[in-house]
C-alpha cells in the first residue's frame, strides 16, 4: 500500500515544500490537485516534464491528478503520461459527468479513476466498477462509522479500488477519534489493499494545521512559536471547530 499526501492539504505549497512534508512523515507518493501551488497543470507539459524528473530523483510517485472540473484539455493525456499517473475525477462532479469524462479519457488512452464519496459511495462504486473504471473512495469522518462503510466499498469495488482518500487523517487524526479512521486502515490492510492511501484534509479550516505538519510553517509568527506545534495546533483547531 502506497501512502500519499494530497496537495489539497496545503494548497499554496510548492512541489518542493510538499516533498519536504513527505520526507518528514515517511510518505512515498503525492496526489496533485490541479490548481494548487505545485504549478503542475493540465496544459503545461513542460512543467510536468520538469516535475517528473524531480519526482523521479526523490523516488516519489504521483497517485493521481485530482480534477474538480472535468475538462479534458488536449495536453492532459501527455501530462498524465509524463507523470505516470491517472486522472482523478473529483466526487463533487455528478456521477454522470464523471462517467462521461472517464469514457473520453479511456478513448484517449489515458488512465482514469473516479472518486466516490458520501452516503452513496458504495452504490456509486458499484456503478463505476460496472462501467470498467477504477474507483477511489473518499473516506470522510462525517460519514462515520467509516469501518462499516469501508467494508461496503471493498465489496462494491472489488479489484477496481485503486485508492482511498483519507480525509481527516494525518495531523487531524486525533480530532476524529471514534469515527473509524483507524478501522479503515485496518480493514484495508486485512483486505490486502495495494492501492494508494492518501492523506487529505477534511476541511479547509485545518490548512494551518496541515501546513505546520508538513513543515511549511514554524509557528504562528509574532513570537508565538510553539514547542509542540502539532499538539497546540490540534487544540486550536478543536476550539475553532467548536466555534464553527
Amino acid at each position, binding site marked *: 500500500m502506497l501512502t500519499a499526501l494530497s496537495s489539497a492539504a496545503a494548497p499554496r505549497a510548492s512541489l518542493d515544500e510538499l516533498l519536504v512534508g513527505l520526507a518528514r512523515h515517511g510518505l512515498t507518493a503525492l496526489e496533485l490537485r490541479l490548481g494548487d501551488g505545485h504549478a503542475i497543470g493540465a496544459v503545461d507539459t513542460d512543467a510536468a516534464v520538469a516535475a517528473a524528473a524531480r519526482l523521479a530523483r526523490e523516488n516519489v510517485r504521483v497517485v493521481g491528478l485530482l480534477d474538480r472540473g472535468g475538462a479534458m484539455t488536449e495536453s492532459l493525456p501527455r501530462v498524465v503520461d509524463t507523470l*505516470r499517473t*491517472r486522472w482523478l475525477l473529483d466526487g463533487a462532479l455528478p456521477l454522470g459527468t464523471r462517467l462521461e469524462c472517464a469514457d473520453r479519457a*479511456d478513448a484517449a488512452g489515458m*488512465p482514469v*479513476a473516479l472518486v466516490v464519496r458520501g452516503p452513496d459511495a458504495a452504490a456509486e462504486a458499484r456503478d463505476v*466498477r*460496472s*462501467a*470498467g*473504471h*477504477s474507483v477511489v473512495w473518499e473516506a470522510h469522518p462525517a460519514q462515520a462509522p467509516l469501518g462499516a462503510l469501508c467494508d461496503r466499498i*471493498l465489496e462494491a*469495488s*472489488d*479489484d*477496481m*479500488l*485503486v485508492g482511498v482518500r483519507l480525509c481527516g487523517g494525518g495531523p487531524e487524526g486525533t480530532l476524529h477519534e471514534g469515527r473509524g479512521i483507524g478501522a479503515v486502515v485496518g480493514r484495508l490492510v486485512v*483486505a*490486502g*489493499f*495495494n492501492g494508494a492511501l492518501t492523506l487529505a484534509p477534511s476541511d479547509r479550516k485545518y490548512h494551518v494545521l496541515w501546513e505546520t505538519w508538513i513543515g511549511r510553517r514554524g509557528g504562528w509568527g509574532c513570537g508565538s512559536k510553539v514547542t509542540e506545534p502539532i499538539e497546540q495546533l490540534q487544540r486550536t483547531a478543536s476550539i475553532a471547530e467548536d466555534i464553527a
Partner: protein
Amino acid sequence: MSDPRTLDVRVIPPREKHPTIFQTFDALTPGESFVLLNDHDPRPLRYQFEAEHEGQFGWRYLEQGPAVWRVEISKVSA
C-alpha cells in the same frame, strides 16, 4: 493448436486477482495466450499491462458484457 486456457477471475479474491493474472502472463511462452473471464471491463488492467509490459502483450476482446467480459491476452513473440 490448442485453445488458450481460461482464467476466471470472478472467483478469485480481489487481493489475488492482479497477481494471479500477471503470474499467468509471465508463465506464457511467446506466442501463447490465455483468456481472462471477468464480470466487468478490465480496462484498468490493460493500463497496468501497458505500464509494466509495454510492447510485450496482445489484448483482444472476445466478449464485452453486459454480464461477462472475455479478453484474450497474449505474449508477443520477440
